[in-house]
C-alpha cells in the first residue's frame, strides 16, 4: 500500500503546469486535493511516471460571482465551497450536496475541480454541475476552451479533457432566487458511495411547475439528466411526482453490482426521484 516511484513536479504558475502536461501527457497525473488520486496511487491502481502537484499554482482558488454565474477555481476545497455564503445563496443545489461528499476531514482537502475532473459516477459534484447546467474551463499550451457539463462526462472516470489539458475553473449559472432544490441519495453507510442519487430543481409559478431538472448519479456510467421525467412535471403540481419517477426509472439501464442488482437500482431511482420532487416542492 505504498505508491510506486514517480517524478514529482510542483509548478509555480499555470504556464509551468501546462508545459509539464504538454511534455508528459498521458504519463502524468494532476494532483489537486488527492482524496481520490492518492488512494489509487497507494493501491497501485495507477502508476503515473510524473505527478504534477498543482496545489501551489496561484489563481486557481478563487470563488466569485460574475454576471449571473459563479466561477469556482479548480483548487477551491469542498469545505470552502459548501461553507461559502455565495454558494449557499446562489447555488443551493450544489450547497446541499456538499455534506454528502466524502467526510468532514476529506472535504478539507478535496477540491471541487478535482472531483469534477475525476468523474466518479458516484461523486456528487459532477451531478450538481450537470443539473445546474454548468461547464468546465480547461487550459493547455494550445489554448483554453469551455466544455459544457453535458459534454464533459463521457463514462466511468473519463471526461472530454485531453491528456495535456488542465481543468482550471468550473462555471455555475446562479439559480433564480425562487428555485427550489432537493438532493436525495441512499448509501449503505454515511459518507460512503451512494447506491443511487437524485438531484432535482423546480421553478414554480402560480402553483405549477414552470421548469424542472432531474439528474441521476451512481446508477449508470455517468451523471445523467432525465429530461422526460422533468418534462412530465411541467405545468403540473406535486401530483405528477409518481409519474416522473416511473419515467426516470424506465430511462435507466443499470448493471448488477456487488451491492445492488439492476432491478433494485431501478427501484431506487423511482423511489428517490419521487422523494426528491416532493422534497423540492415542499
Amino acid at each position, binding site marked *: 500500500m505504498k505508491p510506486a516511484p514517480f517524478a514529482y513536479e510542483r509548478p509555480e504558475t499555470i504556464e509551468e503546469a501546462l508545459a509539464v502536461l504538454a511534455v508528459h501527457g498521458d504519463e502524468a497525473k494532476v494532483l489537486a486535493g488527492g482524496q481520490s488520486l492518492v488512494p489509487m496511487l497507494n493501491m497501485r491502481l495507477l502508476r503515473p511516471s510524473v*505527478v504534477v502537484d498543482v496545489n501551489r499554482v496561484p489563481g486557481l482558488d478563487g470563488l466569485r460571482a460574475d454576471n449571473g454565474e459563479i466561477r469556482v477555481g479548480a483548487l477551491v476545497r469542498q469545505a470552502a465551497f459548501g461553507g461559502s455564503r455565495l454558494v449557499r445563496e446562489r447555488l443551493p443545489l450544489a450547497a446541499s450536496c456538499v455534506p454528502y461528499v466524502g467526510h468532514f476531514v476529506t472535504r478539507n482537502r478535496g477540491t471541487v475541480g478535482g472531483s469534477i475532473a475525476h468523474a466518479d459516477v458516484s461523486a456528487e459534484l459532477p451531478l450538481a454541475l450537470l443539473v445546474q447546467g454548468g461547464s468546465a474551463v480547461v487550459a493547455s499550451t494550445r489554448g483554453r476552451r469551455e466544455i459544457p457539463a453535458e459534454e464533459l462526462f463521457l463514462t466511468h472516470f473519463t471526461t472530454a479533457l485531453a491528456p495535456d489539458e488542465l481543468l482550471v475553473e468550473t462555471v455555475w449559472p446562479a439559480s433564480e432566487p425562487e428555485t427550489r432544490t432537493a438532493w436525495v441519495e441512499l448509501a449503505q453507510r454515511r459518507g460512503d458511495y451512494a447506491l443511487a442519487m437524485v438531484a432535482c430543481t423546480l421553478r414554480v409559478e402560480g402553483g405549477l411547475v414552470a421548469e424542472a431538472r432531474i439528474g441521476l448519479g451512481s446508477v449508470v456510467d455517468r451523471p445523467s439528466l432525465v429530461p422526460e421525467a422533468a418534462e412530465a412535471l411541467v405545468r403540473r403540481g406535486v401530483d405528477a411526482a409518481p409519474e416522473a419517477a416511473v419515467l426516470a426509472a424506465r430511462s435507466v439501464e443499470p448493471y448488477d453490482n456487488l451491492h445492488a442488482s439492476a432491478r433494485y437500482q431501478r427501484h431506487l431511482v423511482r423511489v428517490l426521484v419521487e422523494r426528491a420532487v416532493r422534497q423540492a416542492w415542499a
Partner: protein
Amino acid sequence: MGLREIELRVNDRRVRETVEPRLLLSDFLRHTLGLTGTHVGCEHGVCGACTVRLDGDSVRSCLLLAVQADGSAVETVEGLARGRELHPLQRAFHEEHALQCGFCTPGILMAAADLLERDGTPSRETIVDMLSGHLCRCTGYEPIVEAIAKVANR
C-alpha cells in the same frame, strides 16, 4: 526518483529532511520522525486513524505526500497536550471512557479539535456526521460522541 529536501514545522518543532516524493506524510511522521501516535489503518482515506492537522485543517496524512507539507505546519496527537496537561478533548475522552484499544483515538482527537475550533457548539448531529469519517470497532461511538459534546458544552 529525485530526492527532495523539505522543511516544515511539526508540533512547533522545525524539521528538515530529505524524502522520496512517494513517501506518504503518515509514514514520514511515523518512520522518519518517530511520531508513532499517528496511526495507519487503511491507507486509502477511509478509516480516519491517520488524521493530523495541516496548517490547522484536519487532513488524512495517508492521502498526502510528505513533500506536499513542505513549508507547512503539521500538528499530530503528540502536540495536543501542553506538557503534562491534557488537552480538554483528551481529558473528556478519559473521563467518558471514549476509547478502548485506542487505535482510532488520535485521528478522532485531531478531527474533533478542528471541528470544535470551527464550530464551538456543534450539535450532536454534526458530531455524529464528523465521526462518520472515523472507524472505531470498540466503543460503539456513543462515549466518543459524549466526550466531544462535553467539551463543546463547556
